[in-house]
């Protein structure tokens, strides 16, 4: 440890000041714009925003999809990460490579691929027809299901990677030992795996949740105007309606949701671990 305080500040401050100027100042100004009413400070923009049933619906939809994607990613993520971690070193590296692979392709193209997959004559419908689960093609495109799948595919890798690094720190014999002592899989997960991997879950969960709040292309292309989300609504308010107070309200909601998710996940993980 070095103790020279001036030196420490000289090293750390440029980054902090940069983030403040580029982020805090303009974003703060943008948020304050939603707090101006006709006569000084007021919440009228917020009242106005939430008085529209359509806006309430979009807000709840965004929250719901974000939570569903995060929860699903966590469940699938644990199963996948556990499977990867138990593999021999070489295979493990290759599997991680495959998980990361889709992140190399532009999200624009990745989202478009879903239009082909989910269409009435797409692979999913053909497969369902083949197994006899449906006679008439099911409509997926421009539904919440399509947005959900698109977001999950986009952000699941982040969860898996976070959980793989967390699970690797798990002592090798902890799980078998607990099993021998008679614990069932649920107990093993709650008592051993979850507490020891909570950092990974927090990191992964925050990345997935904020990711699904911020993704613009997926709801724009797979949802369209039938499945508006806060981010597509923000774009519409700015470019079509030039309604900046409403844009400011949406910006605040997005930031607040993302911060709360971060704090909430931290809480849950700490509470479960009994610390």
């Amino acid at each position, binding site marked *: 440890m070095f103790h020279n*305080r001036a030196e420490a500040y000289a090293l*750390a401050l440029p980054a*902090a000041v*940069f983030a403040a100027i580029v982020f805090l100042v303009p974003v703060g*100004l943008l948020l304050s714009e939603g707090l101006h009413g006709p006569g000084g400070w007021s919440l009228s923009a917020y009242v106005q925003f939430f008085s529209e049933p359509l806006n309430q619906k979009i807000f709840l939809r965004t929250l719901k999809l974000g939570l569903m994607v995060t929860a699903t990613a966590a469940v699938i993520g644990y199963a996948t990460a556990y499977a990867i971690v138990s593999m021999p070193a070489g295979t493990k590296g290759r599997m991680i490579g495959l998980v990361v692979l*889709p992140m190399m*392709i*532009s999200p624009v*193209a990745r989202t478009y691929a879903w239009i082909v997959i989910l269409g009435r004559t797409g692979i999913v419908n053909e497969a369902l027809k083949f197994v006899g689960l449906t006679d008439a093609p099911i409509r997926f495109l421009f539904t919440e299901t399509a947005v959900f799948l698109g977001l999950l595919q986009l952000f699941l890798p982040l969860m898996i990677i976070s959980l793989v690094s967390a699970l690797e720190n798990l002592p090798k014999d902890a799980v078998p030992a607990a099993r021998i002592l008679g614990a069932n899989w649920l107990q093993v997960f709650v008592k051993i795996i979850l507490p020891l991997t909570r950092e990974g879950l927090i990191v992964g969960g925050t990345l997935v949740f904020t990711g699904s709040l911020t993704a613009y292309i997926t709801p724009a292309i797979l949802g369209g105007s039938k499945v508006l989300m806060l981010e597509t609504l923000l774009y519409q308010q700015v470019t079509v309606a030039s309604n900046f107070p409403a844009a400011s309200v949406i910006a605040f909601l997005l930031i607040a949701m993302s911060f709360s998710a971060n704090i909430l996940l931290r809480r849950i993980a700490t509470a479960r671990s009994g610390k």
Partner: protein
Amino acid sequence: MTRNILAPLTLGLVLLFLIGPFIIIVAASFSAGETLAFPPQGFSFKWIAKVFTVESFRQSFGTSLFLAIGGTLAALILGIPAAYAMSRYRLPGAETVRFMVSLPIVVPGIVVGLALLRYFVIPAGVPILLALFLAHTALILPYAVRVVSASLANLRSDMEEAAVILGASRIGAFVRVVLPNIRGGILAAFILGFVTSFNQVPVSLFLSGPGVRTLPIDMLGYMEIVFDPSIAALSSLLAFLSIGIVLLAERFLGFSRYV
């Protein structure tokens, strides 16, 4: 026994879900048809060839390349000292610094883009390209700090303390002892930052102007007009470029240890 089947099965299905779209995009790049379809209609190189004839792609590719390289370098120049200060110095307010620097992860990109447009570009006349550069630098900063911090944590601090005691200057110790040892971490941060910036859409959505567009925004705009497989072809080319870079980095530096 069931676990032995269940684990690979889960993994297989997850990989299919993750990689399926990738395969469709690659297949569509070599299609002879006029639209994106799977299985592709026929085989041809015409869409791959077309990518190189679209002039706006060349221009926006240049813009994106500049932002990804310049932004990542700038983020490293800011981020490495900050990470070093937080791991090696007793720094009152370290939490605040960490918080500020990681803000870009929690603040949605579309909000940042709009805020920069409204308060930098329009009233202050900041050129769009500079605004994009600042935004991309800030976006990459958290990754740079995080990855470099992780590699600093793996490096024992007594080496550089010893170097200082033996008469090396603080900067000399950093350059000669620390830097060579965190080289891999810096490269990892560079690749991560590069990919993040290169595929970034929401921040750049509002920050485009005459003659200035990032490649993903240009692709989005192109697709709004023409719906042929050339976007798939361009995406495949870019993906193989990224994969190639990562594989090379892995091969020579053991990149995966740092991510």
